[in-house]
Every structure is written in structure tokens, then in C-alpha cells.
């Protein structure tokens, strides 16, 4: 009897527990919602618009919708129709009446595919006698219009959704008949930059590991007071403004800088043969290593501090040489810290912008600098977005790896 009456009670009890647990889950989640929404609005959506813009560009199709339709029907082999020429000229001139900046933007987009198109299109805009038959008038204006090249360029840039920016970011290009060809060696610069960036990141990571390991070791094995002092020496650069540290390297490395002056003064080099250490790859490597070194030292230090000395002592008492004891017993225990530091430094180095931009000159530019270059100088925003998306994918993969191996909640600051 007793157990019979208990059954519904137990059921309602577990239901009540489930309700309470769900309510607690919601309560915890509600606290996170404001930040999550903020991150969504000011980070996730911006990143999404970057990815979107890498594959979408409606500069041409928005200004010249009818021409876009006709270009898509055109097979890129037969001579262009009078209808296409007429639609191109009338829509271009109509766009100019609405907003004078639009035709220039359209012309710039075409010009990126076919150099020299800009001036030809400007001719069309300024020509006074543009009437039917448009095709003949265009050819009379400039016989380049009789050739298929500029029309091919227009056929390529016409579609709003296009893989061409992503292809361009990988040194490939799409032709008017839709085939994908790889870029000639002279124009193939993106892959070169990607590989240069990866190489710089790898070298910086290696340098940081080589320089950081002894520092973390001596800090972890010194007395607390000495260790704290050393920690301040490591943390002061970490806390100092990045621009200040870059300024410092400019003061040190430039041709009339402190190091060159010192070398001349002590007679190691001749005044006329000062070392070129600034505005090149060397400066980028040195300054980046300096900036990122604390990111290697701090995780290594915290791992080394937790390593007990008894294993190494056991190895020594069993007859291992100091080197064997270090390499076979101590070093493997530092791998978690070394791995975390290396991944963190590599992730940060791959996306580095400020230091290469200020001290790198021509040869020390990395992929981030090219993105900024296309954003600010060539104004080819879609290409910048495509390159940025590829870089983003790489960084997110590394971040995922870091999270799997180290755990993002293990990340500590200072």
C-alpha cells in the first residue's frame, strides 16, 4: 500500500526536479545572454558580412542590370550583339545621371580584370554623340571595343555571386567561358604571401620557444623573491603598449639607431657600412619575437612550476647523466606548457599586423598587411574579404586545436 501511494509522488518529485534544473539552466543562460547578443552584434555579424562580401559583389549588376542579364546569355565566343552594346551604353549613362560616382566604380571593377578599361569607359561617358547603332559608335570611339577582351572582362565581373575573389585569393582566376585557370607566375602573389606568413609565424614560434624555455626554467627554479623580480621583467614588456615596443625597435635598429651607433663607436663596423636592420624581414622577425615572447614564457612557467623535482632526482640517482635526466625525464613533462605556448604564439603571429606594417618595409609584409592594403589603398574590398576569410579559417582551425589540446578555460593572464 505504502509503495503504491509513493509511486505518483516519486514521479511528480522527479518532474519537479527536472523543472527546477531546467529553471536553473535558464537562469544561468540568461546571465550570459547580454554578452552573447553583444558579441553577436559587434563580432559575429561583422565577420559574417566579411565572409559574405568575399563571394558577393554587385557593383556591376546593380548599376547595369539589363546588361548583366544579356552578358550572362552571351556565349563569350560569338561577336557581341547590338542589343548588348545598346544596353551597356544607355545603362552606363543613366547610372551617371543618378550618381556620378557609380560609373567610375563600375569601370574600376572592370579595369581590375582588364587593365586599360577605365579610360575607354570614361570615353564612352564623355562622348557627345552616342546613339544607335551603339556598337558601331563604340568601335568608332575606340577600336578596342571590337575586340572581345573588354566584353569578356565585363562577363566575368557581371554576376553578383562569384567565386572569383576566393579564386584570386588562391592565385586562380575564372575566364569568360567559366573555366578556372591558375595565375601566371608574375601575378601569383597571394600563395607566396600566405606561405611567407606561415614561415614567419613558424620562425617566430621557434625563436620564442628557444628564448622562452631557459627563462621559464630559471624562473620556475629560482627562489620566490628572485622569481618575482624576473616575472616583473617579463611582464613589463607584456604590459607596455605595442606601439611603444615597436618604437623602441625602430630607435634601436634603424641605420642611425642605437645598435649601429654602438657598433661604429666600438669599431666593429665602418661608418659607411652601417647594417640595414630596419624596414625588412629581419626587423619583423626581431620585433615580433620580442612582442610575443611573454606569451611563450607565461604558460611554460606555470607548467614548470608544477613539475616536482623528485623524478629528475630519481633519474640522476639511478645513474642518468644530467643531460639524459633533463631530456628523458624533465623535458617531456614541460610539453603541455610548450605546446600551449607554441600554439598561442603561432596563432597570434599568423594574424600580426601592426609590427610588420611599421618595421617590415617591403619584404616584411604579412597577409594581414595585404588585407589592409586592399581595404585602404586599392579599395578592392571583396578581395580583402576573401583573403581575410581564408586567414580566418586557418586561425579558427588552430583555435579549435588549441581548445582541444589545451582547453580555452585554461588560458590565464599574468
Amino acid at each position, binding site marked *: 500500500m505504502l509503495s503504491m501511494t509513493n509511486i505518483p509522488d516519486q514521479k511528480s518529485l522527479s518532474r519537479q526536479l527536472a523543472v527546477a534544473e531546467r529553471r*536553473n539552466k535558464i537562469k*544561468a543562460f540568461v*546571465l*550570459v545572454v547580454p*554578452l*552573447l547578443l*553583444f*558579441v553577436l*552584434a*559587434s*563580432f*559575429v*555579424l*561583422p*565577420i*559574417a*558580412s*566579411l565572409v559574405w*562580401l568575399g563571394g558577393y559583389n554587385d557593383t556591376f549588376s546593380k548599376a547595369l542590370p539589363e546588361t548583366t542579364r544579356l552578358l550572362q546569355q552571351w556565349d563569350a565566343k560569338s561577336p557581341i550583339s547590338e542589343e548588348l552594346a545598346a544596353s551597356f551604353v544607355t545603362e552606363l549613362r543613366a547610372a551617371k545621371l543618378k550618381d556620378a560616382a557609380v560609373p567610375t566604380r563600375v569601370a574600376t571593377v572592370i579595369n581590375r580584370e582588364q587593365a586599360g578599361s577605365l579610360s575607354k569607359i570614361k570615353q564612352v561617358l564623355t562622348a557627345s554623340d552616342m546613339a544607335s547603332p551603339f556598337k558601331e559608335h563604340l568601335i568608332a570611339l575606340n577600336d578596342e571595343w571590337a575586340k572581345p577582351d573588354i566584353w569578356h572582362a565585363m562577363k566575368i565581373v557581371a554576376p553578383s555571386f562569384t567565386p572569383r575573389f576566393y579564386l584570386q585569393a588562391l592565385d586562380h582566376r575564372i575566364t569568360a567561358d567559366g573555366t578556372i585557370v591558375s595565375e601566371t607566375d608574375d601575378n601569383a602573389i597571394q600563395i607566396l604571401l600566405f606561405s611567407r606568413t606561415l614561415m614567419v609565424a613558424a620562425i617566430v614560434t621557434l625563436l620564442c620557444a628557444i628564448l622562452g624555455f*631557459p*627563462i621559464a626554467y*630559471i624562473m620556475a627554479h*629560482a627562489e620566490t623573491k628572485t622569481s618575482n623580480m*624576473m616575472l616583473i*621583467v617579463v611582464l*613589463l614588456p607584456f*604590459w*607596455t*603598449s*605595442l*606601439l*611603444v615596443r615597436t*618604437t*623602441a625597435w*625602430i*630607435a*634601436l635598429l*634603424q641605420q*642611425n639607431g*642605437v645598435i649601429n*651607433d654602438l657598433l661604429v663607436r666600438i669599431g666593429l663596423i665602418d661608418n659607411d657600412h652601417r647594417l640595414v636592420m630596419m624596414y625588412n624581414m629581419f626587423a619583423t622577425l626581431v620585433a615580433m619575437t620580442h612582442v610575443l*615572447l611573454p606569451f611563450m614564457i607565461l604558460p611554460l612557467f606555470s607548467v614548470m612550476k608544477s613539475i616536482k623535482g623528485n623524478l629528475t632526482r630519481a633519474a640522476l640517482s639511478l645513474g642518468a647523466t644530467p643531460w639524459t635526466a633533463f631530456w628523458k625525464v624533465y623535458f617531456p613533462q614541460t610539453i603541455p606548457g610548450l605546446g600551449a605556448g607554441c600554439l598561442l604564439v603561432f*596563432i597570434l603571429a599568423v*594574424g*600580426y*599586423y*601592426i609590427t610588420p606594417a611599421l618595421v617590415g618595409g617591403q619584404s616584411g609584409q604579412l597577409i*594581414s598587411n595585404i*588585407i*589592409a592594403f586592399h581595404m585602404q589603398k586599392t579599395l578592392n574590398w571583396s578581395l580583402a*574579404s576573401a583573403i*581575410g576569410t581564408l*586567414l580566418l579559417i586557418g*586561425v*579558427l582551425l588552430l*583555435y579549435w586545436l588549441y*581548445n582541444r589540446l589545451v582547453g580555452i*578555460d585554461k588560458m590565464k*593572464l*599574468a
Partner: protein
Amino acid sequence: MNFFTPNFPPYATAFEIAWYYAFRMICLAIFIFLIAPILVIIPLSFNAESFFSFTDGMLALKPEAYSLKWYRDIFANGMLDPNAPLSLDWLKDSWMRSQWMIALKNSLVIGVSATFVATILGTLASVGLSRPEMPFRGLINGILISPMIVPIVITATGMFFFFSQVGLAQTYLGLVFAHALLGTPFVVITVTATLTSFDRSLLRAAANLGANPLTTFFKVQMPLILPGVISGALFAFITSFDEVVVVLFLAEPDQRTIPRQMWSGLREQISPTILAVATILILLSLVLLISLEFTRRRMERLKIESFG
């Protein structure tokens, strides 16, 4: 073994003794590599000439080779009448028109507002994240930390596109949002770290004694995690105060901040005024480092007290 006066055991070989000293020399060299570039700036900022290097006079410690003129230039550059005698009017002129003063004001306004937003949102989220019943903790944590990992150029580019669409580009509000976003991961990391050592039974005790959740948060939890919140806020502020890429992409030409002013100084007209500014910033980071160390010690003391 004592650090500076080692007692070598009698069986130590000559090689081991040599390595002991060599290793310390190597470490010393790396420490010099870390700290020397920063220390070199300080004397250089007192250079009487407009060089980025030591002059003969400076090396001979001649007083006339040193000057404060680059510090004066921080205040004077951009003033209507920089040569006027030092008075209240001079200070007012400097505060209103000096390029660096305008940049400082912009940096402070943006930095303080961004820190405010980042600290409130970040602390709230950390309290939620550290609750044991939090769903999708790993995923959400990953999303919240990602602004720290994604290269700044990508973030700035995306913000430029999106903020232009919604009318936030070239506004102070847009810059505050952008900098707040970059600061939130630091707040989340430090506050979550503090909360892991927070004794949750205190919350139940407070509730048991009749406190409502808000009272419990402000009277019990907040005072105990305050050091973590403060250091998170310091991180958020320094992130904003040192940020230049987002400002370059999003700000109007006259929305200059200190880092942007330094950036254009380094790219265009290199002058030792930058070294003077850099020296001030180094002192500022020293102050921040010390205050962080202070909050850390306080946190450790609290930890001992709450367990004791």
C-alpha cells in the same frame, strides 16, 4: 642551491660548473633582450637633438645634451600660441588644441566607456558561465573568447562593413562597441578564473539566511570576486588604450587616439616627441602592473581568509 653563490657538490665536473654559469649568462642575455628596448627609450626621450640615438654629449653626460623639450612638445604641438608664458591660459590652450591632448581625451573617453561596457557584460556572463548547471559551456566560452584570437585586421574589416550598414561607422559609439568587444574576453577570462576558487556554499548560506539573489550577488559574491573584476577591467582598459587597427578602420580622421597619433607619427614625421609619449606610457604600464600585483595579493589573502 643558492642562486648567486652556488655551493657545488664535490662531484660536480668542470663542465657542469661551466654550464651553470653559461646558462645564467644566456638567461641574462634573454632578459636584456626583453627589457633593454623598453629601458633605452627613457633616456632617449630627453635628447636635446632630434635623433633617435644617443649623441656624444649624452654619452659624456653633459647637461646641455639633455632637455625636456619633447615633453613640452606633447603639450605645445597644435597650440595657438605655444610660446606664451606658462599660465592658466597656456594650459587651457594646450588642453583644447594640443594634438596629443585631444588624442588623450579621445582615448580616455573611448577607453573608459568601453571598459564600462566590457566589465559589466563580461562579469555578468562569467557569473552565468561558472554556474554548474550552465548549458553549452564549452561552445559559449569558445565564442566569447574568440575576439581575442581572430586577427585584429579581420575583425576591423568586418566591423567596417557591418558598422557602415547600421550607421555606426565613424561614430564614437561604434568605437566604444568595438573596443568593448575586444576587452570582453579578458574580463571573462579573469573573472571566470576568480570564480573557480569562489566557495558556492556561501551563496546557499546567504539564501538560507533570507537574502534575495540580488542582495546575495552584491553583498556576498561581488565583494569576493572584486579583485578579479578589477583586473579584468584593467585588461579591458589597456586593450582599448593600446588599440590602433580598429581606430584606423572605423574612425573619422579627427577621432584621433593616442595609439593612432603614435602610429601616424611613426609612419609620417618621426620625431622624438613619440619617445617622450612612449616614456609616459611605460610609466603608466608600470603603475598598472603594480596595481594588478596589488589586486592579485589581495585576492590570495581573501582566498586564505575564506578557507581559514
